[in-house]
């Protein structure tokens, strides 16, 4: 898959440099200057708008959650409407450990959240990924609803519908305390977690493993034919995606200091799907663009007039589905190509 990228001997480089497609393949995983922009923006937000850091935390958690979905949906083509199952599993892991004072250290809590979510992802993926299409979609929704109702039934432990409020979270590295009034520490912590997870996902999708996922999305039959272990790859990808969603959920529980059933609901699963498709799936930065646009619109429009927000969101989704199949980034790319082509022609 990534032959041109991995073999670095002089002959192949010379041969590749004559072929523009091979050149593109060689360079596709390289760092580009604009990739620093989201992180600069993230730090700028911290310095410029200290009053919006609560919103900023929300944004970072949503980006991470959408990124985890992008790995399953955008890269491997696993169409799921039940991703909040893993988000909720992570959130409840962190929440219950903290609420009963069993474990409050934030970083290791997130690792445990990832482990629990990955275990659920692995077990459900093992069974569910035998199916495809509508059946798989339904099974993911039902698995999520199953967890939601289980959390509801176990209300003596999970707090049921009301959830677990005011979770105690230990200071990061034992020094930086989470302040419930000012989200400074929470924001920087979330930014750091997102950065680590993003670097991991970026390495993963450009690795041979990531390339084989794209192959499975584009043509399953051909991947079977060339001997790729399709189902095993899908299960691994689904588990990793679940682990990342679990981290996002754990981070949500830590930054908001509570967990409730909304972590596991269809609303959350549908929202993250909308965020990802809005931004553009299968392209790493779609999660960033989608989350910023969606949350900014929601934050400012919903406060003024909630119904207008719903109407606007509905119209936006319909327009995206009809005219901009690859989300905002896809639309931008098309326009950019057109602009470049026109400039080249004139």
């Amino acid at each position, binding site marked *: 898959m990534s032959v041109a990228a991995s073999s670095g001997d002089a002959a192949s480089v010379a041969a590749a440099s004559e072929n523009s497609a091979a050149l593109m393949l060689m360079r596709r995983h390289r760092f580009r200057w604009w990739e620093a922009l989201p992180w600069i923006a993230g730090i700028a937000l911290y310095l410029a708008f200290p009053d919006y850091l609560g919103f900023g935390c929300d944004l970072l958690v949503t980006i991470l959650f959408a990124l985890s979905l992008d790995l399953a949906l955008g890269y491997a083509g696993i169409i799921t409407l039940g991703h909040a199952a893993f988000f909720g599993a992570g959130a409840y892991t962190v929440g219950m450990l903290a609420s009963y004072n069993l474990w409050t250290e934030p970083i290791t809590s997130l690792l445990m959240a990832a482990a629990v979510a990955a275990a659920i992802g692995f077990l459900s993926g093992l069974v569910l990924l*035998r199916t495809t299409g509508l059946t798989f979609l339904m099974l993911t929704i*039902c698995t999520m*609803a199953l967890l939601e109702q289980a959390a509801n039934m176990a209300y003596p432990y999970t707090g049921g519908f009301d959830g677990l409020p005011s979770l105690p979270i230990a200071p990061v590295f034992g020094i930086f305390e989470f302040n419930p009034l000012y989200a400074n520490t929470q924001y920087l912590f979330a930014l750091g977690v997102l950065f680590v997870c993003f670097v991991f996902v970026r390495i993963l999708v450009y690795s041979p493993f990531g390339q084989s996922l794209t192959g499975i999305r584009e043509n399953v039959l051909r991947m079977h034919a060339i001997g790729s272990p399709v189902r095993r790859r899908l299960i691994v990808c689904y588990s990793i995606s679940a682990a990342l969603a679990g981290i996002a959920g754990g981070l949500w529980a830590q930054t908001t200091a509570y967990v409730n059933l909304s972590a596991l609901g269809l609303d959350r699963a549908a929202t993250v799907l909308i965020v990802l498709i809005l931004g553009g799936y299968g392209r790493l930065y779609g999660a960033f663009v989608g989350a910023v646009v969606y949350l900014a619109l929601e934050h400012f429009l919903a406060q003024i007039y909630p119904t207008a927000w719903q109407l606007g969101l509905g119209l936006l989704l319909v327009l995206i589905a009809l005219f901009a199949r690859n989300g905002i980034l896809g639309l931008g790319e098309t326009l950019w190509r057109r602009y470049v082509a026109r400039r080249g022609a004139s």
Partner: protein
Amino acid sequence: MNFAADFAGILLGGLAAGTVLFIVSVGLSVTMGLMGFVNLAHGAFAMFGGYLIVLAMNRAHFGFATAIALGFVGTAALSVLLERTLYRRLYRAGELDQVLFTIGLIFIFIAAIVIVVGPESQTLQLPPALSGQLNLGLVSYRTYSIFLIVVGFLIALGIWLTFERTRIGGQIRATVDNRRMAESLGIDVDRLFTITFAFGSGMAGIGGGLGAEFLGLDPQYPLKYLVYFLIVVSVGGLGSVIGVYYASLLLGVLDFVLTLYLPKGGTIFIYAITILILLARPQGLFGRKES
């Protein structure tokens, strides 16, 4: 109250709720079977029809039967309009775009209803003939529930006969089984789809109105019952009328019993059973093997 009467009461209540689910979902099953179009907005048509019926009766003082007819025709007309202008463009698109598009439609419907009618929930005023109790010998039960169960059975029978005995039914079955083959045999799948889409949406509209008693009727309706509609359709099997009928009744009774005896999280069993059925038979109870 003795045990038998209790049991009959629960069974009848569940069957009536299940019948409503069937009337709403049957169109979704057939259109998804025909085109493979993931139409999450089906519940929005049910809500639209429900509002038409309820408002026609409460504000314009139409008769029960006239209002139902209006609900059917109005919803069918709206669905044809949307199918011709918007849905049509997405037949060849991926599932993801269809999901996104229909979720968008749901939001638009919800916002439109809130703006035009208001966010409060609506109640159906039953005609006097249907609002009393009916003595069934062993137990007496609400006339309206019995009426619904009977009507639902007749509708199921009617649609089943249409599927099995008429030309258009044969064409629908052929297309559900193998769309390409049906197209090569000269069946106009586009026209067939428009007809079934209009009919299915009209039925959903009726279901929304008739079921206001059981499922309620408020702007959140299409999202609240989305999962139930999808469960019924996928468990019953795409394109299978009998499958949807059985799955709806089963789900209705189960939901009724569970919310009665296990109000906190009892619906967990519904999801567990759905998962087990779909794992054992991915194509649904009465679905044909995927080609």
